[in-house]
């Protein structure tokens, strides 16, 4: 049986009505039904048709996403005609919740926070399988950054894109570089700066810095009670735990806080704006990487093409300079600029040995219990 299009069906109805085969009421009823049917099917049809013309990206917003948009997405759209629809989130758990409650394909690429979060997507079964042959620029990506992902899923769902550290940021008009270096992580529990201390409202960062402050290895913590005691101590001395890069920059630049742990790229941006902010990576400073994760149900060819474009040397360097985080490109294979080489956390060897990343398995094993405890402590428990 031939399938009628909505237009054809309406034309036939109209013919029957004008020929007198149909009453006015029946004609209007059937027309309304056809229109309703067309209206209901449009969103689904639209999405299906738009899939090849648009890719959905969700990231951290702010200067980071502005750089990605300006140096990667806009040129990509100009080159291919494929638009990039963007969304932002302040906390990656927020986007995971949205993904869980949406249909496959509603969210497609996420600027994700490395292996710790990668596990969550894998556990939730929302990750895709990338065809690496479609991303030839993956060959230039640092192998030490790819390996942790491959350990979790031999077939990658994400491609490492940048890395940075969460070090100590301090107001140089109040704290000297010498004092910062001498005290290190202990600055975050220094009573001298009570009411002027900040920190990222995130379990991993809080536990990591409490471990450094109590002389423990963040990847092999022996005394958890001491950690929670230190987290409480910092909480009681802190003015506010910030929850976004914009808030971090605002608190530091307005002098509301004089010391905090902070993201290297955001601090570099403040320094470039002329604010008197120093940055120090204490021994064992928290290093992290970010990746471009493709979710299940995404238009894989377009997503892979976009990520490959983002990994082009020129694009990757421009984004890195814009967002102030070193790219995942191997400096032994690709010539990087002086600006990138001067960025905090940049590793010129490409071996990443100087950076301390969170052990994904160790942290994943403790994540649920520690997050719950951190939630309670942050609320005064």
């Amino acid at each position, binding site marked *: 049986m031939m399938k009628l299009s909505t237009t054809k069906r309406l034309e036939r109805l109209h013919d029957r009505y004008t020929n007198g085969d149909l009453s006015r009421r029946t004609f209007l009823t059937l027309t309304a039904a056809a229109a309703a049917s067309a209206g209901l099917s449009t969103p689904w049809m639209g999405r299906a048709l738009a899939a090849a013309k648009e890719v959905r990206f969700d990231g951290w917003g702010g200067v980071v996403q502005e750089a990605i948009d300006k140096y990667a997405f806009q040129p990509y759209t100009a080159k291919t005609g494929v638009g990039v629809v963007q969304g932002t989130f302040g906390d990656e758990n927020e986007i*995971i919740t949205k993904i*869980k409650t949406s249909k496959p394909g509603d969210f497609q690429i996420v600027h994700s926070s490395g292996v710790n979060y990668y596990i969550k997507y894998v*556990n939730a079964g929302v990750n895709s399988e990338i065809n690496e042959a479609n991303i030839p620029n993956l060959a230039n990506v640092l192998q030490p950054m790819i390996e942790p992902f491959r350990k979790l899923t031999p077939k990658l769902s994400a491609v490492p894109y940048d890395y940075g550290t969460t070090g100590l940021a301090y107001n140089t008009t109040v704290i000297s570089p010498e004092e910062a270096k001498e005290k290190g992580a202990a600055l975050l529990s220094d009573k001298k700066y009570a009411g002027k201390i900040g920190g990222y409202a995130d379990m991993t960062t809080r536990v990591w810095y409490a471990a450094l402050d109590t002389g423990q290895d963040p990847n092999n913590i022996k005394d958890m009670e001491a950690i929670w005691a230190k987290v409480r101590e910092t909480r009681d001395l802190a003015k506010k735990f910030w929850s976004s890069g914009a808030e971090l920059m605002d608190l530091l630049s*307005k002098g509301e806080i004089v010391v905090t742990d902070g993201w290297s790229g955001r601090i570099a941006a403040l320094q470039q704006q002329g604010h008197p902010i120093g940055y120090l990576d204490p021994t064992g400073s928290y290093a992290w990487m970010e990746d471009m994760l493709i979710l299940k149900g995404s238009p894989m060819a377009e997503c892979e093409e976009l990520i490959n474009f983002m990994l082009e040397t020129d694009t990757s360097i421009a984004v890195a300079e814009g967002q102030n985080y070193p790219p995942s490109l191997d400096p032994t294979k690709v010539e990087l600029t002086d600006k990138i080489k001067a960025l905090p956390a940049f590793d010129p060897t490409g071996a990443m040995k100087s950076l301390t990343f969170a052990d994904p398995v160790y942290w994943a094993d403790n994540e649920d219990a520690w997050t*719950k405890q951190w*939630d309670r402590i942050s*609320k005064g428990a």
Partner: protein
Amino acid sequence: MTRGWTLYDPRLAWILVAPVLLLLIFFLLLPIAVMAVYTFFTFVTAGVETSALTLANWHEFLTDAYYHGFLIKTLRVGAVTALICGVLGYFPAYFIWATTFKHKWLLLLLLIVPFWISFTIRTFSWIHILGEQGLINVTLLKLGLIDQPMQMLYTEGAVIMGLLHFLLPYMILNVYVSLEGIDRTLIAAARSMGCTSAQAFREVTLPLSLPGLAAGLLLCFVLAAGSYVTPQLLGSGRDALFGNLIYDTIMGQLNWPMGATLSIVLFVVLGCFAALYTRYMGMSQIVKGLGG
């Protein structure tokens, strides 16, 4: 078509309420039922749960004092906010009702104006008033009345202030509607029988306006106790309310079964309060206050 139907035919009534009834079933009762079922699901790890039924979430809620403390605190903040709203809201409502100002509608319009601005933006505006570099601190510092900025933001007081800002118009409108329903000849009669203005207010106006005040108190209490945004923006972690606990459990810990349990708890507790309240105040009185 309408043959055999009467004006007050029950069948007609059912047909008329059917769309709303269906909406309530599909968009209120069904989601609540799904949430209730979720409370018995098993949390595996962040973002992962199984449908294996368990009482673990309820056991955790019932045995963990952390949750009880937050529930009591939430009810306290809700009650304090509602009472302050009642005290602060009655007088403007009375003034609007009693005034002989020709353009009374302008006063009512002023009450509604705040709703033209986003609730989140209105809440954010308090940061610029109460913050260390906010209007109050800067003024007091410049006047030399204080040496150090006062800590006003990120306190429970700031949260209650934000809630008052949000809820006061609801209280004023409720009381005003109730006052408007009073037959003014009753007050004139009281006066003619020797009552002073104050006595007429105490013996006639106040008792007759109580349904509106009661409805306003219930509305403000339920909305304050269920609030999430205000404590999130104006309070510190310690000033979180039960709604923030639900948010963090679902969005931070990605523990949906426990988050659903906490949601159902808040729903039931507030529902019980509303039921008890209407039981003793009388539903018709509340509805009269809400609807005028």
